[in-house]
């Protein structure tokens, strides 16, 4: 095995173990329940993206090994190791454990999904290799970076969604689905070649040259204006791209779901359930970039003449405000497409406690900014996003209760942010990596 791949497996063994356990448990029931055909390969690609953000490639280039070997190692780490874990877990769950639980194995489904696993991982690697290694400097760079960023973001949801929409076996594959398989196959093949290119991009990240002379643009000529305008513009810089990114993904999801409803596909989800089920993903997509911004800028911000309580409030309220904005827009979009009452008005208030919970979870992440904790909390958020509204719908709490719960959680979150940003020191000394994205970590 390529030493890089071996190293990748060794470092991410805990993630691969969770992946293996979850997939094998799900595939026990694959014969009866299509939703049990779990595909979690994207977790392996995400792990590789975190390695790249930590500057893994540059570290490797200093070692006595060729560029081709490094590129091959990176490719096999994602596609090879990911597929090996996914397929072996599917075989264990589907062939070995299923009979023990009185379930039947479906070799057709296993075969198709094994091929899908390889193609999806190759496609994920293709998107990963297209992400910019440094902030783009040209329009084409922005367009390319935007396209691959969007596809990479969507693949996180899209590949998971394949669990629901993939046909049961080869015989059920429609011509349209066949075309999708060919497209995935093309991306997977291309990823082998683009990995080499990516390695060079990341090895020598784009640096702005030092100008021979700076024609002193006076800082008071820099667009800005009043103090609050400058600060609000800055908040918008962080806030709006997050909302836009989530909305783009939401639009994609809604259009697919709407198409499925129109086509009468068996896996379609009713509109109301759809809003609730999407919450988990929207929570993760909303809170994570904002967490990265908060973590990446805290050190600089704590040097400014602003009392700790103000920063703590600002940081605590960001995910809450973003959550309310995103969920509000999402519900509006679903309503606009379906032209029907999406959810009963009272239930919409479940957004508020959920958004408060996002803020609370962010406090925990800032207190323990370590990868396993962040990873675990992201999983918790995604589960919470689905379970929390269901629980509230089941127990039907009163409106005042929900408002009080939201306020109480938000208040607790502010207190925790205040305490932990004041006491903790780890968050101010982040290593290069996942939470330093906004702070300038290398991709």
């Amino acid at each position: 095995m390529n030493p890089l791949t071996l190293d990748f497996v060794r470092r991410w063994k805990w993630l691969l173990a969770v992946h293996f356990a979850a997939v094998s448990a799900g595939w026990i029931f694959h014969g009866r329940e299509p939703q049990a055909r779990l595909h979690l390969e994207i977790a392996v690609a995400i792990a590789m993206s975190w390695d790249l953000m930590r500057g893994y490639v540059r570290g490797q280039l200093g070692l006595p090994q060729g560029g081709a070997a490094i590129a091959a190692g990176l490719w096999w780490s994602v596609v090879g190791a990911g597929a090996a874990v996914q397929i072996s877990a599917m075989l264990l769950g589907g062939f070995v454990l299923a009979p023990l639980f009185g379930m039947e194995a479906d070799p057709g489904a296993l075969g198709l999904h094994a091929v899908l696993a390889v193609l999806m991982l190759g496609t994920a690697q293709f998107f990963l290799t297209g992400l910019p290694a440094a902030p783009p400097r040209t329009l084409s760079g922005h367009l390319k970076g935007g396209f691959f960023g969007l596809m990479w973001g969507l693949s996180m949801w899209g590949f998971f969604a394949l669990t629901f929409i993939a046909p049961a076996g080869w015989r059920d594959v429609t011509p349209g689905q066949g075309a999708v398989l060919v497209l995935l196959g093309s991306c997977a093949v291309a990823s082998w070649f683009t990995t080499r290119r990516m390695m060079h991009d990341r090895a020598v990240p784009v640096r702005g040259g030092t100008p021979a002379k700076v024609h002193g643009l006076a800082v008071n000529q820099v667009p800005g204006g009043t103090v609050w305008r400058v600060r609000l513009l800055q908040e918008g810089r962080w806030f709006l791209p997050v909302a836009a990114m989530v909305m783009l993904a939401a639009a994609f999801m809604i259009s697919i779901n709407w198409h499925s409803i129109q086509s009468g596909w068996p896996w379609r989800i009713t509109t109301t359930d759809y809003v609730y089920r999407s919450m988990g993903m929207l929570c993760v997509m909303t809170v994570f970039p904002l967490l990265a911004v908060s973590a990446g800028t805290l050190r600089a911000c704590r040097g400014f003449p602003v009392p700790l309580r103000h920063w703590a409030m600002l940081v605590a309220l960001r995910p809450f405000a973003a959550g309310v904005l995103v969920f509000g827009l999402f519900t509006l979009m679903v309503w606009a497409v379906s032209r029907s009452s999406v959810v009963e008005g009272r239930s919409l208030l479940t957004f508020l406690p959920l958004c408060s919970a996002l803020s609370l979870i962010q406090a925990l992440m800032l207190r323990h900014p370590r990868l396993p904790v962040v990873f675990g909390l992201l999983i918790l958020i995604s589960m919470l996003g689905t379970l929390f509204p269901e629980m509230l719908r089941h127990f039907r709490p009163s409106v005042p209760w929900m408002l009080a719960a939201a306020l109480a959680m938000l208040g607790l979150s502010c207190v925790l942010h205040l305490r932990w940003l004041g006491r903790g020191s780890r968050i101010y000394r982040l290593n290069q990596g996942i939470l330093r994205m906004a702070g300038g970590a290398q991709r």
Partner: protein
Amino acid sequence: MNTPAIEIRGLRKAFAKFALGPLDLTVPNGTIYGLIGPNGSGKSTTLDLIFGMGGRDAGSIRAAGFDHEVQEREMKLAVTYSSPETSFAAWGRVGLAIPYVRSFYPAWDDALCRRLMELFRLDPDEKIGTLSFGARTKLSLLLAMCPGPQVLVLDEPTTGLDPEARQILFNELLRMVQDENRTVLISSHQLSELERFADHIGILAEGRLVCEGSTVDLIGRHRMVEFSQPSGGALPVMPGFHVRRSQAGRSLAVVDLSMHPPASLEARGLNLHSQTELPLEDIFLAITSQQKEAA
């Protein structure tokens, strides 16, 4: 009464594998104070604690006359901080980060900002994420110097800077201290530069301040002493007396003459052959290695 620029009393902060303090540190007004120490000795932790990046377990910190917690805003208006770990990349371009930081400081010096942008060749249209390490350091220094602070705290300010930029930096710092009576606290490993520019030196080792004084005094009182011990026996082991080398009956030791004047050494039976001046780096090495041995 002349209030110290920074006054730290009984500061303690414990981590899993390291404990800072108890630390007492006084940075006099209108000086350049060099805080030096081995990696992991607690320099950056001390500076971070001044700015509330982590909570102290005990002790008090006053900077520019303000309590760093109770009067946090007032303190941070008067005291600014530049450190290599601080990143402004999230602000996008140089020309966006500067107005943002400027919006916090009423006394921001636009003329100095323009001058430093030109001297450091920082292009306002440049993306911070694509700046070289040295250029990022320059930006961080500019953002710490232009608010017109009474006290400037710099953690490793010369890391990644070219010689020209280092010269510009120290010229500006000297101007701030001499012309405007401001104070600079620098943590650095560039001891030759500190020896030239710093008025005071504090040496931190294993989380404690083990030596402090004016640079002239610190260098003046330490000597490399060549001696022999006719009576034989073990070489003396005592604070302020660090044997560096021993060969063929002759030994070399870094000696703090304020603790061990030549007469007292001779009274211990040592024959002194020569005394030579030492650069700050050798004094630092002697003091910290003695501290390490003691630990």
